[in-house]
């Protein structure tokens, strides 16, 4: 999509900000969008640190948060995937206008880093996003630009496994140092749920009326209990 297309989707509040970013980063700005008093900008991985400097120079001086997103959703999770839209309703709604873009200023790759900055003077919010290469999860650190990013990057490193280049001490912040895995990745499944699904979502058993059916059900239950035993062992 061309730049002109995007400028039309940005409200007047942000035309200066966007112009600043395009001037400073030129090719680095990939996509932008605004909604109410917030602006989303997706930048190239290589200009992540520079984007923060630009934002700081135009008075986005309040650091709100920094975190990551894992967009993977086709993984075989042990837990219920509650976030999934029901397939039949999508079909029935196909005649209606297509749903809104899921990824606001979204990207192509699985992992994204996103951060929010705020300008106290202008009372405007700014979200910066960047895509990460799945094979090379390295990104520049913001900790020397925004001091508050230090802990947020430690948290993101712990939860997603992104490596922040230039960060002085990437060590565990929440979990004990013996912990293995990155909990917020979608392929990190919760063991307690794998062993036993949440009882609230399991259908209640039918009334034990017909003996034939109950027999077959019993065998089902036996199978399922075997399964759960297996999963416990594994």
């Amino acid at each position, binding site marked *: 999509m061309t730049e002109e297309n995007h400028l039309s989707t940005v409200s007047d509040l942000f035309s200066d900000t966007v112009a600043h970013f395009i001037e400073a980063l030129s090719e680095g700005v990939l996509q932008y969008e605004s909604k109410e008093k917030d602006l989303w900008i997706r930048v190239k991985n290589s200009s992540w640190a520079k984007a923060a400097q630009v934002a700081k120079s135009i008075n986005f001086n309040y650091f709100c948060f920094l975190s990551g997103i894992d967009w993977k959703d086709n993984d075989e999770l042990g*837990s219920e995937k509650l976030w999934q839209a029901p397939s039949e309703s999508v079909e029935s709604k196909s005649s209606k206008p297509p749903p809104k873009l899921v990824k606001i200023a979204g990207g192509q790759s699985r992992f994204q880093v996103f951060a929010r900055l705020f300008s106290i003077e202008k009372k405007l919010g700014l979200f910066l996003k960047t895509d990460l290469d799945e094979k090379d999860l390295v990104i520049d650190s913001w900790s020397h630009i925004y001091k508050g990013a230090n802990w947020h990057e430690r948290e993101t490193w712990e939860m997603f496994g992104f490596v922040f280049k230039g960060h002085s001490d990437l060590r565990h912040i*929440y*979990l*004990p140092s013996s*912990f293995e895995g990155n*909990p917020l990745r979608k392929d*990190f499944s*919760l*063991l*307690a*749920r794998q062993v036993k699904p*949440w009882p609230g979502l399991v259908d209640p058993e039918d009334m034990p009326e017909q003996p034939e059916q109950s027999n077959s059900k019993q065998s089902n239950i036996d199978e399922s209990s075997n399964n759960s035993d297996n999963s416990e062992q594994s």
Partner: protein
Amino acid sequence: MALVNKKFFPKPLSHILNNARKYSLWVYQWGLACCAIEMAATFVSPRYDVMRLGVIPFPASPRQADLMIVSGTVTDKMAPSIRRLWEQMPDPKYVISMGSCANSGGPYWDSYSVTKGVDQIIPVDIYVPGCPPRPEALLEAIVLLQKKIATEDVSQRWIQ
């Protein structure tokens, strides 16, 4: 105490000793999460006033405490410290587990970082259900514990 060593303890003496013990419970407050505030309300608020039950909530360290109240979510990172401080308490010692999280993990039953119940680490005498339990519930737990102490046989407890 010489009588205790001979594996014999007369019942009237046991009764007196138990009564003395149950009305001077020095409690070590292990406040961890939401329940800690309800525990503080029980101990500090003039409305609930736990001291009338003979519970003294100001020991300087677990080494001077008889009772430990674990109130709140026990995480895997915290669990070793709880075990260690429980080990520092002198016998006879009692533990009250307050709130769903300390009982069984509560709303975090499927979390990756929460210990599913403090009874996996230390033995628990009284469980208080609730999320968080009301101060009255904690008061009742203390009364229940006092009943338990009153019926204890001192020779059973101390001579092993």
